[in-house]
């Protein structure tokens, strides 16, 4: 089952289709799951244009997509995620949780786009990323979509960064948003323009 909430209404491109073609970067985080826990994709975009000269980590971001993928085969999940991210012409980066290596086989088969980057989370790196996510929310630098399931998922994570097993959600959105925000810190050597087919 796939549940997509995609909403660009909080972004400056709202009501201005021409600006949709502007060079807005897209950053995504994916918490990978399938059977016990679902996958969750969070997509955030900066509110400034890429050529604003503001360092990426200092920008303000707004979430434009929250996608839940329950019980879907990984190949199907990848197809859906590619569709969600196939907008605009700016550069893009997706960080996915590679701690358990669910997507390794698909990566080896060349089914993952080159701009998808697997991140292995350690207790140390997870705490750092979580602190950055919290700070961005506290400082109002990251605005989130009104997705109730996402909200429940975020509130499942405790101060030890563990999510309770009892609830329906398991902190998937916490990981995906954390990774999406982390993707904004990535610095390309050469700014690439996303073209479907060329990059995946």
């Amino acid at each position, binding site marked *: 089952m796939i549940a997509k909430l995609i909403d660009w*209404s*909080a972004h400056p491109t709202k009501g201005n289709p021409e600006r949709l073609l502007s060079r807005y970067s897209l950053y995504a985080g994916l918490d990978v799951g399938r059977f016990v826990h679902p996958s969750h994709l969070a997509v955030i975009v900066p509110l400034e244009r890429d050529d604003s000269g503001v360092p990426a980590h200092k920008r303000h971001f*707004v*979430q434009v997509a929250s996608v839940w993928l329950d019980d879907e085969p990984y190949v199907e999940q990848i197809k859906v995620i590619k569709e969600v991210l196939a907008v605009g012409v700016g550069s893009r980066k997706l960080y996915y949780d590679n701690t358990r290596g669910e997507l390794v086989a698909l990566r080896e088969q060349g089914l993952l786009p080159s701009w998808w980057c697997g991140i292995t989370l350690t*207790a*140390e790196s*997870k*705490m*750092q990323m*979580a*602190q950055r*996510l*919290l*700070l961005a*929310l*506290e*400082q*109002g630098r*990251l*605005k*989130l*979509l*009104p997705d109730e399931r996402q*909200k429940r998922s*975020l*509130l*499942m*994570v*405790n*101060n*030890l*960064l*563990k999510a309770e097993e009892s609830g329906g959600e398991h902190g998937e959105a*916490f990981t995906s948003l954390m990774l999406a925000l982390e993707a904004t810190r990535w610095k390309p050597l050469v700014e690439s323009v996303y073209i479907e087919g060329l990059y995946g």
Partner: protein
Amino acid sequence: MASVLRRSISELLAELGALEKRATSDVPPLPLGEFLSREFLPAVAQVEGELVEAPHLRAWAELLECHRFVAIIAFRGSLKSTLAKAVVAHVLRSHARGAYDAVYYSATVDLARWHLRRLKLYLEGLAPAWGWRDATAGEAVLRYERPGAIFSCEPAGLDQASRGRRCNLLVLDDVSDPKKLASMADIDRALESLQRRILPLLKDKSARVLLVGTPLIEGDVIAWAEKNPEFLTTRLPAILADGQAAWPQKYPLEELERIKRLVGEKSFRAEYLLHAVAPADTFIPPDVLEAAILRGEP
């Protein structure tokens, strides 16, 4: 022949005694508070640059003069680690005879090494003036010698698996590592390490323990020390109960406000106001999350 030999030995012993006396009597005793202001902080300033006057250091020094087990819980940047180093330096200054062993514990051995490297820099001019000879080339280990006395201070990490060393002074400087507190088991392990591996190795009934730190999570080492009746605990949040800044010379209220905006509310409450978080509470406070969710027009 025997009487000549006896006389030579007694002369030698007398000379040795005089030498020892000379070596120690050149360094008149100085209470820790005086030592801080007259000798240690000027040496720190030579390495770190000018220091802002810190009246709370003298109050802490007085506590340390009177108690064997002291826990100082204070905000980031309050110079509590500088005080911990001063305690080690003060012992070095006053130690006269035999071997004295200190261990400097931090959350990781790398962090403890960093602290001792700094302390060694501070002592570069002081230790020779007290008659000590640096007996090691190691930059993160203190090993000093003078006639009839040896002093050592070695770095250690609470994360190390090995047994601790027997010591006269145990300094625990920020032993909770926020990056390693991934579960209640981690918290318990750190505490157990302290209780079973480190504290039982105090050499004798004059051995001392100084714990300095900032509380991170309820039930951690700091919380344990606070509850332990053997420890004399003092707390210094950056903003006092009456709303005044604890150290206005360096951190006036407007500077603390700026820091709060920089590090965020939750970190500020922990690091500057000393409110440890409960493990079971949500990492993102519900009100913060609610404020971050878009409702209608942005």
